């Protein structure tokens, strides 16, 4: 009886939402929204201060943001302060985990012995995963992805090593140093922008040609820093999870 009531309630609320949304004037149907009317054209044409001109891939030079990927140009250039906040949130959560689990001994929990296929396969796959992660955050301004997925991919490669070899340990001190250095450099780059062109985190380096690997000014630098920071942070979180409790 309870389940039937729950399902009926769910269907009722779903129908209410569905009809309610389409009853609003001007709410477009699925797939019929005109993006050109909504997204500010200045962000797409990479020029928010002056009149818009056409942007041609591989030809246009020295735009406001030289990133070929719209998402990256907004996330790391126009709204870079927001990304700094996101990185801080991740830092605070990893700090909380190490505070909660920090009382545990440095000894890692005994794990069951991995089988042959996992042990041999991880040795083949590990460098490929690391390479893909580094590729994703180096090409963050050209292709989808960026610092966060690339860093998590590196952390998952370390997790694979933990699973495949019960004697495997990482030197967590080095990861903590990498993380703090990368985080500080992000803020320092922001302050350099404040000194050079009067805005925090402004893109003060020449942005180059759209679509080239070495382009987009500070965006690749920031994405490499974010990738290193996220990767080392999540590795620390995984190591904390695997620690044994002190009896």
């Amino acid at each position, binding site marked *: 009886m309870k389940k039937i009531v729950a399902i009926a309630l769910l269907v009722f609320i779903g129908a209410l939402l569905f009809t309610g949304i389409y009853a609003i004037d001007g709410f477009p*149907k*699925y*797939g*019929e929204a005109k993006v050109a009317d909504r997204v500010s054209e200045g962000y797409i044409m990479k020029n928010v201060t002056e009149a818009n001109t056409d942007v041609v891939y591989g030809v246009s030079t020295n735009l406001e943001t030289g990133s070929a*990927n719209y*998402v*990256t140009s907004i996330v790391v250039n126009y709204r870079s302060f927001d990304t700094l906040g996101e990185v801080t949130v991740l830092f605070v959560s990893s700090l909380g985990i190490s505070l909660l689990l920090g009382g545990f001994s440095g000894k890692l929990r005994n794990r069951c012995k991995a089988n042959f296929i996992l042990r041999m396969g991880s040795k083949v796959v590990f460098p490929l995963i690391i390479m893909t992660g580094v590729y*994703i955050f180096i090409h963050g301004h050209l292709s*989808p*992805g*960026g610092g*966060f*997925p690339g860093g*998590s*991919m590196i*952390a*998952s490669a370390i*997790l694979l090593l933990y699973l495949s070899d019960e004697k495997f340990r990482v030197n967590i001190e080095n990861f903590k140093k990498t993380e703090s250095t990368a985080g500080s450099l992000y803020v320092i780059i922001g302050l350099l922008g404040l000194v050079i062109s009067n805005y925090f985190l402004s893109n003060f380096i020449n942005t180059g040609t759209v679509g080239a690997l070495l382009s987009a000014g500070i965006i690749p630098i920031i994405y490499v820093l974010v990738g290193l920071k996220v990767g080392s942070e*999540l590795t620390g979180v*995984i190591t904390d*999870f*695997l620690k044994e409790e002190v009896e």
Partner: protein
Amino acid sequence: MNSVNIVEVIVAGLLILLGFLAVNSKKMITAIIYLSLSSMLAVLSFAIMKAPDVAITEAVIGSGLITAVFLFTLLVFKKVGDE
């Protein structure tokens, strides 16, 4: 309705089905596997909706790291329960 693709409908239906199975499965381990499968399908639906950035993030975090963390937690629970 001509803009709705048949693949999108199948993916959406499977997402709902897998979410239902994840909530209703009796064993924890099956629930985790269903959750992982549903985030795999979420990756597909993000790619269909032309959000590749979100799709990559979901693929790495949703179906990779989250599943691993849940499995570790489950192993710890089992150890405590056995003693």
